[in-house]
């Protein structure tokens, strides 16, 4: 009896290890190795191991200031994003009204826009000459935080929205029938059920906020520095690897702590995902506050984008499409190596690769971390794995990029010139989003459903198909869209790794912005609009793929 169960347990652990091996290898080679290689450089001074120097850096008053600003701006940015994102998720995923698919697609646009472009758009609005110039927000932390909310709103809306869609309406209905007011239903039934998804989204948003780079520099007018901008400066310009290593370690520590906290907050069992999903209903009077919040969110997203579109249509002081027509070429005086249209094709190709990589890895990770654990050790291992795959979001792209150069340079890992590096790096950024979208739903599947299917004679494959996949369908589509958008918009790692002949669209936009001449600037903005529109179209197409019947009986 004991021997028998031992064998079952061994087999289960073996499967666990087998499933985790692929993702572990990828994260090991393309994340842990480069980052530790770079940090190790900081610990060596004049060929000697010297940890004291690194610790000394942490005592600098400037470092304290930088860390403090990073923490409070990221916390505030996350809080506001979540508070605004929850009502918007409700409106866009539980209410039925014309145009909601278009709105959903539109809200993800900020997520892919290059930070430089968004920075310019925000500054056009808030700057001395802009329509909101009177508010005096240019160069203030308010502008930085507004931009953080702008960028990350989609993360909350999509993660929470998908979970909300899958929520069984019956407990809420029962509570209401027993006399609970709508807000009581929300506070006592809905919110606890969404807790996992909200904490997941908040974690990801916090990681994005705390590693925000361009936004802080452009909108803060150099007055504010975060750990991320500091690491960039120390590594890229000053080559002060010791100080950079100190800050990178600090970053890792804070992120790990955060992930542990998030895990605790999440670990109460998620509400079981039911096979009966509610139908979206028409908005009623009680939905007014949520609709109001959605209007605010829309204004926040639409204003900068409208500024951007407006300026892309200004040609020499008049309205025109010349900047868009120029996209088939290489800019005035050949500012570019390839036409923008070709860069768009590169972007799309890379995004397809990055998406399947992120989905494959994400599914494996999600399955590994959501299986029921037998014993505390196994549970801890699974929690550790879960956190490990979130880490890449919380670590500086510069550290990773320089790490690639010095650790992946020799056989058998002579990979630094490989064309696969770009999609792999993008997939690592998208992976946490994929995992966080799938896990809450997967964790909610009652294991008894699988057991029932198996006892009714379903093969393992059929069990996955009829039990898991039936519910996973929607989050998988959401995750696909997410991964695709991340890849289309990713700039930090991509600009470091992409090869000159095959630039992606954000890289080309950055390049155009750096060249003098109004025509190149206009082209950069037009290209950004094209990038945004492409993303929105892809999102719409993905939404179309949703087959409503599959989720329910």
């Amino acid at each position, binding site marked *: 009896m004991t021997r028998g169960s031992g064998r079952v347990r061994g087999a289960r652990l073996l*499967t*666990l290890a*087998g*499933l985790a091996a692929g993702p572990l290898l990828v994260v090991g080679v393309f994340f842990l190795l480069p980052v530790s290689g770079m940090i190790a450089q900081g610990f060596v001074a004049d060929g000697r191991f010297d940890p004291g120097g690194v610790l000394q850096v942490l005592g600098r008053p400037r470092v304290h200031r930088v860390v403090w600003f990073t923490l409070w701006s990221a916390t505030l940015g996350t809080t506001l994003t979540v508070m605004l994102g929850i009502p918007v998720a409700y409106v866009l995923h539980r209410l039925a009204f014309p145009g909601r698919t278009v709105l959903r697609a539109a809200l993800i646009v900020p997520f892919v826009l290059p930070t430089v472009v968004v920075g*310019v758009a925000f*500054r*056009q609005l808030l*700057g*001395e*000459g802009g329509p909101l110039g009177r508010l005096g927000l240019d160069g203030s932390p308010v502008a930085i935080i507004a931009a953080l909310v702008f960028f990350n709103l989609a993360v909350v809306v999509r993660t929470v929205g998908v979970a909300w869609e899958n929520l069984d309406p019956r407990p809420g209905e029962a509570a209401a029938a027993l006399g609970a007011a709508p807000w009581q239903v929300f506070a006592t039934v809905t919110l606890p059920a969404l807790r996992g998804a909200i904490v997941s989204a908040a974690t990801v948003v916090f990681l994005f906020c705390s590693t925000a780079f*361009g936004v802080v*520099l*452009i909108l803060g*007018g*150099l007055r504010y520095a975060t750990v991320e901008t500091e690491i960039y*400066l120390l*590594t*890229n*310009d*000053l*080559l*002060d690897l010791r100080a950079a290593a100190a800050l990178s370690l600090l970053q890792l520590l804070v992120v790990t702590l955060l992930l542990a906290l998030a895990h605790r907050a999440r670990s109460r069992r998620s509400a079981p995902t039911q096979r009966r999903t509610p139908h979206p209903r028409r908005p009623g009077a009680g939905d007014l506050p949520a609709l109001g919040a959605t209007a605010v969110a829309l204004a926040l997203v639409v204003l900068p984008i409208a500024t951007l579109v407006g300026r892309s249509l*200004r040609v020499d002081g008049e309205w025109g499409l010349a900047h868009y027509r120029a996209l088939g070429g290489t800019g005035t*005086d*050949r*500012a570019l*190596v390839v036409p923008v249209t070709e860069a768009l094709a590169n972007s799309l*190709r890379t995004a*397809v690769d990055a998406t*399947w990589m992120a989905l*494959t890895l994400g*599914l*494996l990770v999600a*399955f*590994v971390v959501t*299986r029921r654990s037998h014993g505390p050790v196994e549970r801890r291992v699974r929690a550790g794995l879960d956190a490990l795959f979130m880490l890449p979001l919380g670590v500086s792209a510069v550290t990773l990029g320089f790490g690639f*150069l*010095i650790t992946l*340079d*020799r056989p058998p890992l002579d990979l*630094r*010139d*490989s*064309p*696969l590096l770009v999609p792999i790096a993008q997939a690592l950024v998208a992976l946490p989003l994929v995992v966080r979208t799938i896990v809450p739903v997967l964790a909610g599947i009652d*294991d008894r459903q*699988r057991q029932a299917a*198996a006892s009714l004679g379903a093969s*393992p*494959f059929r*069990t*996955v198909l009829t039990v898991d996949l039936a519910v996973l369908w929607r989050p998988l589509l959401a995750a696909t869209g997410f991964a695709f958008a991340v890849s289309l918009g990713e700039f930090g790692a991509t*600009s470091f790794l992409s090869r*000159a*002949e095959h630039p992606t669209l954000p*890289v080309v936009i*950055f390049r155009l912005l750096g*060249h*003098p001449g109004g025509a190149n*600037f206009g082209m950069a903005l037009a290209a950004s609009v094209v990038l945004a529109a492409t993303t929105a179209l892809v999102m719409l197409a993905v939404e179309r793929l949703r087959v409503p019947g599959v989720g329910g009986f």
Partner: protein
Amino acid sequence: MHRGATAMSTLVCGLALTACTLTAENGDDDAEGGETPSATPGSTVVLVTHESFALPDRLVRRFERESGLDLEVRSAGDAGSLTNRLVLTAQNPIGDVVFGVDNTFASRALDEGVFAEHAAELPPGGEELTLAGAEDLLAPIDQGSVCVNIDTTWFAAQDLAPPQTLEDLTDPAYEDLMVAPGAPTSSPGMAFLLSTIAEYGDDWPDYWTRLMDNGLKLTSGWTDAYSVDFTAGGGGGKRPIVVSYDTSPAFTVDEESGTSSTAALLDTCFRQVEYAGVLANSDNPAGAAQVVDFLLSEPVQEALPTSMYVFPVDADAELPEEWVRFAQQPQDPYEVDPAEIAEHRADWLTEWTDITTR
């Protein structure tokens, strides 16, 4: 239960297999780094450069045809990032030859022994721009100056005499009229700081205090200084004085009147020289040397203004017409010893940040 997981992994692996076709297509151009020690025809030579590098396709193709080499260009961030990547990978370089290390970053790379010797034959005018002590390691390819630019139309309309010198910029008459990219985040920003260090020596912090008191606005990069805050940058900005390049006036020419609406203040300039060099430990040093010579050849030198917005080092190279008319070069730009820049860069930037965020 674990059988369910196994099935899922089979499914996922199947997915991955189908997807492999995509990468296969992508991997077609996965050229191998040059393995051969000499510039044998057909070998690959890898040029590492910054993200602003661009040359007309036909020139590159002609070089490949004539040399029999396969030229692969890899861009590696801005000039600072490029230099630091070379320093970190000195033992196993990321390419064979580099273009784009400038006089503000060169000495760090020289100290680390990043370059191999190649005594390139310089065109007329090139000798004046070599780096003392590194004549055989780095060949000057182009130069351009960072100067304070003014919107002449704006000053004419306001009936205000425009500033001329660095000192003028602290004059209350020009309060709140200037915008500049920051030194830590922007290469022209750094060049402007170096101008002030060359002019004021150890008193530069005092000058910057006065500049900030006079309402200097700082941005993170050149792009948003010029295109958002500058009055003549097309973004409806409010500030008619900006830190930009000596070539910028050639890009604000009004087609109807045939004049430029901006001008560079030639007494405020710092000259940046960009160099090319063969990398030590390269796999293809002979091919690398050929690339350096190619960059110094007349067709490339004449293509530099339109491709990269910089002046060729070749004094005989023909310039585009607008440049001849509107892009005036400083006669006597500010200079700071590259070794001194390497030594003090971190301190200067720390002090600068303290002053500007006070």
